[in-house]
């Protein structure tokens, strides 16, 4: 099939290219309807990745958060018109110990393969899941981001010791919001405390037990486990504060992406016997768990609606650029492109 793919060829320059994509077998052809912009897309779009990274990865279609409708399923599982979420991680092998999102052989749309900015996206059946009926497609658009939090929660559950009275989440951005919401839902017995820099953002975390500023006195907090959801320049001070605050033998889930090396006070990590582990991306199982969460807990979807920032109908390359520019300027929330290319 001839398929038009909208690739970033250099920072801030997107060009359409038509590619021939093989069909048949059990492939599913999906028409993207709602695509959501991630910080990672912005780092490529704005040229904030190191030049050698840009050199090796571009041209490439961005966007790894998106939903659409099935146009045709050669395997016959999904009826045309079915609303589905598209999974950007594509494993090339099965491993009994390593999750698909950590396998070095896996590809990831918008990072090591073309992302979802395409006329039609052709996927194998394992990379497509049906959405719950009637779900707000603007929320469903960033299911991938929620699944990253669900994945982090599952890792936490497997690695953290059993005392989970208080869980601290550092970061008052989108990821901090979603991680707090996911922890609230999956660990209802735990006290969820969010620690951030901005009062106006923290005020929106209405579902947590406590919201503190990083500059507040935190000495009264007894944090058993922590999540770092800051990334960028904020990672250093967040990790420093976590290590200083957290109880011995706690776990520290690292989720924030930083382009620069982050110094860590290993002396205190050793003294407290802390477990720091990274968590990134997600796999098919995490997407399935996320959709289950949406279905069993509609409140989660309602809270996520508050993250919908800009919604822009995109029918030209210039519209795509406008969506990315608008997304850069907003302090919080997600930018959703209604895909009309």
């Amino acid at each position, binding site marked *: 099939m001839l398929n038009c793919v909208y690739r970033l060829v250099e920072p801030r320059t997107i060009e359409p290219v038509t590619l021939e994509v*093989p069909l048949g077998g059990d492939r599913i052809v999906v028409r993207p309807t709602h695509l959501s912009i991630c910080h990672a897309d912005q780092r490529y779009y704005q040229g904030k990745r190191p030049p050698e990274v840009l050199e090796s990865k571009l041209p490439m279609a961005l966007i790894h958060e998106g939903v659409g409708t099935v*146009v045709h399923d050669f395997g016959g599982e999904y009826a045309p018109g079915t609303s589905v979420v598209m999974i950007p991680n594509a494993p090339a092998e099965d491993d009994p110990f390593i999750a698909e999102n950590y396998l070095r052989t896996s590809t990831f749309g918008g990072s090591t393969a073309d992302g979802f900015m395409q006329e039609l996206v052709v996927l194998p059946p394992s990379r497509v899941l049906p959405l719950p009926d009637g779900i707000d497609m603007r929320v469903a658009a960033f299911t991938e981001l929620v699944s990253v939090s669900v994945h982090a929660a599952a890792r936490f559950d497997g690695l953290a010791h059993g005392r989970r009275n208080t869980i601290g989440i550092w970061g008052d951005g989108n990821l901090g919001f979603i991680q707090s919401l996911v922890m609230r839902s999956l660990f209802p017995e735990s006290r969820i405390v969010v620690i951030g820099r901005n009062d106006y953002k923290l005020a929106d975390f209405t579902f947590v037990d406590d919201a503190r500023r990083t500059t507040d006195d935190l000495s009264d907090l007894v944090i058993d486990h922590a999540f770092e959801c800051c990334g960028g320049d904020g990672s250093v001070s967040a990790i420093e504060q976590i290590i200083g605050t957290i109880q011995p033998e706690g776990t520290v889930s690292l989720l924030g992406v930083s382009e620069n090396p982050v110094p860590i006070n290993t002396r205190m990590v050793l003294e407290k016997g802390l477990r720091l582990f990274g968590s990134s991306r997600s796999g098919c199982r995490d997407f399935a768990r996320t959709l289950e969460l949406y279905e069993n807990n509609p409140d989660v979807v309602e809270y996520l609606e508050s993250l919908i920032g800009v919604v822009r109908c995109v029918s030209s390359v210039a519209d795509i650029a406008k969506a990315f520019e608008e997304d850069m300027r907003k302090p919080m929330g997600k930018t959703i492109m209604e895909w009309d290319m």
Partner: protein
Amino acid sequence: MTSSAGSDGRVYAAILAGGSGSRMGNPDKPKQFWMLGSRPVIVQTVEKFALVDDFDEVIVLAAAGWVKQTRDLMTRYLPSLAGKITVVTGGAERNDTIMCALRHIEQEHGIGPDDIIVTHDAVRPFVTNRIIVENIAAAREFGACDTVVPATDTIVHSVDGRLVESIPRRSEYYQGQTPQSFNAARLKEMLEGLGEDERAILTDACKAFALRGQKVALVRGDVTNMKLTYTSDMRIARAIVGDGGEDA
């Protein structure tokens, strides 16, 4: 966005492949049979339509003498979609070919009052899913639609070919592409009602609709939805098809 609101009438695609190809470098081979990527142009075009669920049937109208080969290509390259594709013989002119499609529909299924026919040049393989879906929706809403892109060059009007008569305001002018889509019953009525002299002039069905005061909606086309007319167009088309391999 795919709509399966197919309750209001059946939807047909008519892929017009009647061209003799005499304008191409190789006069023996109609241009829709040239290779583009790994497959002939006509296969690339038909596949885009066959993938759209709204279509009850994709009718390919081949020039006399090319019907068997066209059928073979559909079976060879699109085996899992072939059940939805029918190849029939087209006519001498564009409107004759469209009439062949309408006659086929009438004989096989009968033409219902809400049936839609989406007509498209076989030699426009870069048609997108959006354009096709929007054609179906616009034909349902307005009874007829034309796919267009805004004119980029200045349009100059001259009657004698020597002097400028006028230069119209460019923002009001568009270049016509295909698909052109219609309510099938109204299209049949209009084509059958054309007199001999009109037939010679009204080669564009949308034009005939508009001249009779019927609404024809505009559907946003795409500059890449080009028509492969000349050998040089094939070179451009091959350059458009990037060497990206399998994606996603």
